[in-house]
């Protein structure tokens, strides 16, 4: 089974194979019957439209039950501009697609604030509103009478720069655009922005912790999705020559979801096959029309449960989100670098160049409704030291870390980073300032490899845009290769190189912890906040972790960790702070903590104090 997958993946991604396929289809077009050419054109439109779902739902995990609206904006937009201004489709389709993208961008504002079920409802409502507008705004869209006379190759009315476009010409243009779009998306998915879309789906907090701006990422996903849907809609309009509002009802939104899900939500290759299948099926099987609802119903009900990865998962290897070629470059670069310099034990890029960072919290109080989680806590986390935060469950340790990291602001009090007030800064800003944290249970993208997950940490360090990513500009290669090189160094530091290219969901817990640590490190922290990093680790792994933390200290990074494992902390930490019920009850070294009566009382109960 796997051998077949490997073979098919090689075939589907091999440049020569794809080129041959393209050439055959491109030059074979004149030999096809009119109806076949038309169906293939419909299939290409479907592929493009499905890519818009790929980006928004597959990658960013934002469900959309009303995507027909963007398809429709592209279709009507291009048709109306063409009819009103007499411009040709090379102008009208981009304009309409940009309009669609803009509206999607606007939708991301309310949509980005709600989750899951509410998002589903909102997109459903949005799709319905579009349908109503298309039906009622007769002056613009032709209303229920529809818009006829859209320049179309099939009717011989598509004339561009004096040349009358035949259906073959149209098909070829559509083919080119589809192929280019798919290449663009593939490039995009293998860039920092593509990867950031995925982490949005699995953990928005994890995204924030390494400086990935949530709102902007969602906006990008919506805007790109809207653009693709708009392009596909535009080509649809000039394919059929007549637009009626009923073509953009909920059935269209459902159809594209079915195609995407059956293809495999983030598998472009699977979606191509699925789109072609679902376009040809009603043609070949006249019977299908009657059973269409039943078929779609069955597919939607069971595919995500039984057949999660879709056709893509069945036929191909899981897609990768790092360019193999750049990884090779990075490895090469690293080899040359280490050959030139003497090999050091620690990744030098992590070394704090100037002064280590310290954190100072003053009178932090945090209330959740009536519950006081932190009660006027003040403390200094010394620069370059390893500080431990201990205390019974519910004492406020995670809350304090969340506040320092910027996940939420305190009810009152202040946080200073190297003397500057950063109280109101959000987690994304704090991450950019060098305050990076890990979580109590690792928040990783399950189907990403260790390497891909760690690469998320480099997001804020790279600066190329989505456009550059899609076009695979040289800048992208440079920055990715450098990040990959640094990633390699971290993999070596954490001793997880052996599993670097395995999906984290298949790895034991200890590796996942290390991966999350790696991600935090790649973000070049000045201060790293670790939430129970030793939990669930074996003795061997704990020893290794302690060694790593010592190395971090050598590099000048300030470490704050929440922990329960006293043995682990012994000999490792410079200072320990004990919290109980929201207040600090002890600050000092490990030895002092063990003897402090208040600490003993908090952990063991009052009776024990007498015996200690």
């Amino acid at each position, binding site marked *: 089974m796997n051998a077949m997958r490997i073979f098919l993946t090689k075939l589907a991604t091999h440049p020569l194979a794809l080129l041959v396929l393209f050439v055959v289809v491109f030059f074979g077009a004149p030999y096809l019957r009119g109806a076949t050419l038309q169906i293939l054109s419909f299939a290409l439109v479907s592929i493009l439209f499905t890519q818009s779902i790929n980006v928004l739902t597959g990658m960013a995990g934002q469900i959309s039950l009303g995507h027909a609206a963007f398809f429709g904006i592209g279709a009507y937009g291009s048709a109306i501009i063409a009819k009103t201004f007499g411009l040709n489709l090379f102008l009208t389709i981009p304009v309409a697609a940009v309009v669609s993208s803009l509206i999607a961008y606007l939708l991301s504002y309310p949509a980005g604030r709600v989750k899951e079920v509410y998002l589903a409802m909102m997109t459903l*409502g949005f799709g319905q509103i579009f349908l109503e507008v298309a039906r*009622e705004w007769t002056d613009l869209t032709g209303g229920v009478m529809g818009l006829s006379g859209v320049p179309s190759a099939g009717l011989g009315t598509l004339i561009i720069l004096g040349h009358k476009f035949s259906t073959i010409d149209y098909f070829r243009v559509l083919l080119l655009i589809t192929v280019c779009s798919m290449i663009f998306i593939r490039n995009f998915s293998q860039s920092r922005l593509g990867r950031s879309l995925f982490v949005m789906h699995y953990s928005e907090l994890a995204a924030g912790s390494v400086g990935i701006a949530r709102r902007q990422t969602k906006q990008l996903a919506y805007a790109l999705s809207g653009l693709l849907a708009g392009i596909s809609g535009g080509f649809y309009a000039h394919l059929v020559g007549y637009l009626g509002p009923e073509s953009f009802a909920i059935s269209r939104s*459902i159809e594209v979801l079915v195609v995407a899900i059956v293809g495999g939500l983030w598998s472009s290759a699977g979606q191509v096959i699925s789109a072609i299948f679902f376009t040809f099926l009603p043609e070949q099987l006249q019977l299908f029309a009657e059973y269409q609802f*039943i078929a*779609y*119903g069955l597919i939607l009900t069971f595919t995500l*449960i039984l057949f999660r990865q879709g056709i893509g998962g069945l036929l191909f290897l899981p897609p990768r989100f790092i360019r193999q070629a750049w990884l090779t470059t990075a490895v090469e670069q690293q080899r040359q670098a280490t050959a030139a310099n003497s090999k050091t034990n620690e990744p030098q890029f992590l070394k704090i160049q100037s002064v280590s960072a310290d954190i100072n919290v003053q009178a932090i109080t945090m209330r959740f409704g009536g519950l006081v989680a932190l009660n006027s806590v003040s403390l200094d986390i010394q620069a370059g030291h390893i500080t431990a935060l201990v205390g019974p469950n519910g004492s406020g340790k995670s809350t304090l870390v969340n506040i320092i990291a910027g*996940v939420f602001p305190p009810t009152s009090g202040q946080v200073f980073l190297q003397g500057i007030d950063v109280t109101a800064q959000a987690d994304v800003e704090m991450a950019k300032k060098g305050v990076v944290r890990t979580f109590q249970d690792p928040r990783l993208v399950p189907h990403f490899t260790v390497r891909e997950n760690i690469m998320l940490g480099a997001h804020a360090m790279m600066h190329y845009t989505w456009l550059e990513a899609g076009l695979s500009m040289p800048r992208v290669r440079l920055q990715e290769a450098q990040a990959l090189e640094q990633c390699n160094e971290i993999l070596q530091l954490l001793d997880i190189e052996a599993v670097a290219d395995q999906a984290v969901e298949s790895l034991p817990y200890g590796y996942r912890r290390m991966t999350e640590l790696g991600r935090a490190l790649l973000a070049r922290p000045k201060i790293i906040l670790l939430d129970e990093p030793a939990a669930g680790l074996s003795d061997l792994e704990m020893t290794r972790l302690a060694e790593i933390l010592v190395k971090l200290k050598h590099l000048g990074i300030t470490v704050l960790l929440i922990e329960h494992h006293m043995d682990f902390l012994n000999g490792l930490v410079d200072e320990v702070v004990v919290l109980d019920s929201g207040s600090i009850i002890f600050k000092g070294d490990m030895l002092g903590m063990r003897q402090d009566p208040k600490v003993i009382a908090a952990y063991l109960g009052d009776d024990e104090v007498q015996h200690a």
Partner: protein
Amino acid sequence: MDFFLSLVIAGACVGSVYALVAVGLNLTFWTTKTLNFGQGAVMMLCAISTALLTAQGLSNGVAIITGVAIVALVGVIVERIAVRPALKTAGSMGWVIATLGFGILLQGITSKFFGSQAIPFPEVLFTVQDVIDIGGQNISLQYVSIFVVSILIIVVLEALTRYTVLGTAIRGTAQDMELAIVQGLPVNLIVSGSFVLSSIMAGIAGILTAQISGTVDPAFGFELVLMGFVAAVLGGMGSSAGALIGGIIVGIIGKLVGGYISTAAEHGIAFALLIMMLALRPEGFFGRAEVTKA
């Protein structure tokens, strides 16, 4: 009859049905944090079963009970094959799509076996001509009775959840499922039960709506579920009182907009309200803002 009054009464009546749908949606939201996106098909199935059975000669009462029983069974099935497995394996989106798909499947099966035509629905609650005279205005008894029935059901449900052991069990499961399991509550049964109840609510709502329009067809119900969503969101997900008030508000505003502005706008206003509410105050009028521990 007075123009304004006729709009308000019709609005309150259809709104009460939306509220009924919303309350049904709330039930499963309490226990599993999920909604049946295919609830419309459940409504349709109950109404069509009732219509077909009365056409075969069964009495109205028996037909209705059978129809409701059928959808109660469907509730069990939805939970078992769409919701439970999706929650386990398919993440946050899985159940939305699975329940949506299940609704489409039901619709497809129904139209395959019974055709896509609209079939007439019998007059169960009074006839179209029955009116009652209130303060000089002739008000259709059908509207009044539907309103009363909906409110009654909602009130009874609320009483059940507040004052009975079963209700407490449901609320306990809703708050903390793990704790409920530990306490020995038959959580699976409670969850199934919530879906059954939810489907019964939907089925009754379907019958009431079919009563208003007079016909049912397989595509019936989809719009109503959207209205139920709007009602639930306006009132605050999970709040029965909110659902009731939300539903009536949606119904009345819709009719008023249709009457005073344009009948074309009547359709879209509910969705505009939905998006506005979700954007500005997702917890609705009566819900509390959700705070989740990071």
